[in-house]
């Protein structure tokens, strides 16, 4: 059965000020109803300030990143979308007509991009509203119904989320900053919209549920009506929204209190010039420029700061070695310590000098990784950290002595090895590492042991 899925993704823009007033946007960090003024609480007589320029530019940048054409040199009206809900101070939400159209991201066509404002936060249990969030700028991205399965939708949402975060123009996904309306239709059924899904996982589950629900209904000869449903996160099901809400007519009118936007070419070009490179484009460039494998490039562009660091390091040391290290070691250390690339304190030069020590075989890759772990924790030169960790390079004679010692002290293991039990070699290597207090290169140890035991 053919499935068509389209998405409307809303993401808060990371501006310091709200869309139509000068209140700060850090609504989660302050007590309720403190980031408010007559404008964002819709006090009688209040009028919006001109739209926040930074929010408009951020939306332009995001639209460009997903390959949209910006609607330039035309009037783009800001409309009032009327509906009645406690979190909406004026009884309408301001939403722009499309500022951009016709994009594409990973095979999914983007229909259009809008600018919106967030409403406040209503707590139905307490019966209270917090207007701190009211007026925070949002970008809305509407796709064509190009996804054919919940898995595809999930993949698209992950890619999009990553891309949006990469721009640095949106708030991190936490705390309901991203909300998705999911549209899904099965062949022979009406289009169902599921509103207010707050995570990628939620979107996936809501879609899974809807496919089962709609398929069952169609299978039994029932009809899937065109309707709007709500996703209940706690129960992982969707339920019909009140009939009144689904039949709602928003009675859009251009907001008479705001001049329509006119985005001129020059402005778009300015944004374009300063825009960060999209991760998929950057990945392709890194592969070509540094001749590194796709797998490494993919990891490197996963965070903008990581990619920036890579390119700085690649100027100083072998880019291929650096790429391998970024993919295998650095990413591992960051994941282990639950850090993001943005949290890294060491300089590209410090990392480059560590990598060149590895390259020159001054330290082993394992030792290098130990140093890297320290570098993430404390800001210091790799040389000093080597000393601190006691990782003074081992002399050949010391290694030979340790190997001889291990053979001498473990005759049983030697016997086993010579009898063909290869794993005994690992036991002996471990003894050597212990004797050298981890300073030996395991590859050298194995090599030397094998050589000695042959005799």
């Amino acid at each position, binding site marked *: 059965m053919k499935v068509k899925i389209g998405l409307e993704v809303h993401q808060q823009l990371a501006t310091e000020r709200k869309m139509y007033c000068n209140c700060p946007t850090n609504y989660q960090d302050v007590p309720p109803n403190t980031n408010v003024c007559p404008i964002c609480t819709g006090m009688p007589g209040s009028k919006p300030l001109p739209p926040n320029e930074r929010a408009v530019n951020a939306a332009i940048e995001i639209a460009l990143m997903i390959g949209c054409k910006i609607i330039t040199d035309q009037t783009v009206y800001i409309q009032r979308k009327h509906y*009645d809900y406690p979190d909406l101070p004026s009884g309408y939400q301001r939403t722009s007509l499309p500022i951009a159209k016709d994009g594409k991201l990973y095979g999914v066509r983007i229909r259009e991009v809008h600018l919106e404002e967030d409403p406040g936060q209503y707590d139905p249990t307490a019966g209270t509203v917090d207007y701190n969030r009211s007026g925070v700028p949002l970008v809305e991205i509407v796709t064509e119904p190009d996804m054919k399965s919940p898995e595809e939708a999930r993949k698209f949402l992950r890619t999009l989320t990553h891309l949006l975060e990469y721009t640095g123009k949106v708030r991190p996904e936490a705390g309901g900053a991203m909300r998705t309306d999911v549209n899904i239709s099965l062949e022979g059924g009406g289009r169902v919209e599921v509103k207010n899904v707050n995570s990628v996982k939620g979107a996936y589950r809501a879609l899974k549920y809807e496919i089962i629900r709609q398929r069952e209904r169609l299978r039994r000869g029932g009809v899937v009506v065109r309707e709007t449903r709500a996703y209940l996160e706690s129960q992982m099901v969707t339920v019909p929204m009140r009939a009144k809400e689904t039949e709602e007519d928003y009675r859009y009118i251009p907001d008479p209190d705001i001049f329509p936007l006119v985005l001129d070419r020059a402005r778009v070009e300015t944004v374009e010039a300063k825009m960060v490179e999209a991760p998929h484009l950057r990945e392709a460039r890194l592969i070509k420029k540094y001749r590194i494998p796709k797998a490494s490039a993919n990891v490197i562009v996963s965070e903008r700061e990581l990619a920036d660091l890579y390119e700085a390091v690649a100027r100083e040391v072998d880019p291929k070695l650096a790429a391998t290290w970024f993919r295998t070691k650095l990413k591992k250390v960051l994941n282990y310590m639950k850090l993001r690339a943005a949290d890294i304190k060491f300089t590209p030069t410090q990392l480059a000098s560590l990598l060149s020590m590895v390259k020159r075989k001054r330290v082993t890759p394992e030792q290098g990784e130990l140093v890297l772990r320290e570098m993430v924790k404390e800001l210091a030169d790799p040389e000093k950290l080597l000393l601190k960790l006691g990782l003074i390079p081992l002399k050949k004679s010391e290694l030979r002595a340790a190997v001889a010692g291990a053979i001498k002290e473990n005759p049983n293991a030697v016997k086993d090895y010579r009898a063909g039990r290869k794993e005994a070699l690992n036991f002996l290597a471990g003894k050597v590492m212990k004797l050298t207090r981890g300073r030996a290169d395991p590859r050298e140890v194995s090599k030397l042991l094998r050589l000695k035991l042959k005799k």
Partner: protein
Amino acid sequence: MDRGTLEKLAAIRRGELSAVENVQMALEQIEKQNRKINAFIELNSRALVEAEAIDRRLKRKEQAGKLAGLTIGVKSSINVEGLRATCASRTLENYISTYDAEVIKRVRAEGGIIIGMNNMDEFACGSSGETSAFGPTDNPAAPGRIPGGSSSGGAAAIAAGLCDLCLGADTGGSIRNPASHCGVVGVKPTYGLVPRQGLIDLGMSLDQIGPLAHDVRGAALLLETIAGKSSNECVMLDVEKVSYLEELNGGGLKGVRIGVSPKFAELTEPKIMGVIDGAVEKLRDLGAEIVEVELPNLERGLPAYYLIVSVEFFSATRKFDGRKYGKRIEEVCGEEVLRRILRGQYISRKEYRGKYYQRALQVRTLIRQELMAALQKADVIVGPTVPKLPHKLGTKLTPMKMYAYDYLTIPTNLAGICGGVIKAGEVNGIPVGLQVQGKVLGELEVLRVMRALEAAA
């Protein structure tokens, strides 16, 4: 009022009259007359304290502002911090403003003293001053008749001498209509000249705050004070400070082209037209050149206006949902307010957009083009303000009859141009105002013509 606004201002500046005395005079008059006229529905209990501060400044020869010591009444749809901005509706009967409208900030900065809040038609929906939830306002110039609306309290307060100046607001004639019926001066500025931040909406694309005064120079003074761009607002014209007073010396009108249209006589009662024709003759005597202009679609403005205003008003009133200000507007408002909300709700429905709202916007464009073309041929257009004389308070009129009061004032708002009103004469003792419409930002021309007529009287 024996002396002009500027003379009183000078007397205060010279110390012959203190600001405190001026406020006391106003309060006495209000005490004496307001019970009958019902022009004020809330008084500023801090007015005397504010006046004392002005007097101290004047005594120390400090800058006290161009309105220093004058008493200002404010339409109840304009926010004044600490006072109730009720819009004369039960919907907002307990709403105390938390902030000053931009115009109030400007008035205060120039030493004007807010004396109180004026009565008005509920949410400015009315042309008679009768739809207030606080009771109708009487016309001091023609007792027992309506004062006009919706800035009814402001015009009546000026006519009865209760205060020096008033701030009204005009969406389709709400300053000019009561100015005409009460025989006072009123100006509806060019759309976008005066900040609307803090003005509670009727029709956002039409609303404009303006002055009501005893004389032209009083109106000019208040208009200068409140006009000019504000960074706190989006839809404004790019105009820095303006000044009119220096140019208003009451000289002749040589070289001024004054447009008149045969359309006015078609829409207006003959007795009123007689007074207007007399005023036009006077203007000709003062040296103006009278030219005829075509306004063939003028009367089409009325239905278009009521569609536009209803849609915008419907949108603007969605915030009065009962959650924040205590009462849901539809449950407590009067029938004209409800009629406009329901009309707006109906015609803004998706399926009717093309049929009503869009068509109304097209008519608006047509009217604008027509008036702009006429104002190419003439510097100002003069004519009657209201086509009928004010009815007796309490007379029941159908909505269409009530709306018909607005035929001649609405086009100014639809076109976004400016217009002023000055008393031209009387019919059976009832004042009749001459409307002077000017170009976009043509306030000075309008005031000059009005001042010439005033000086010649």
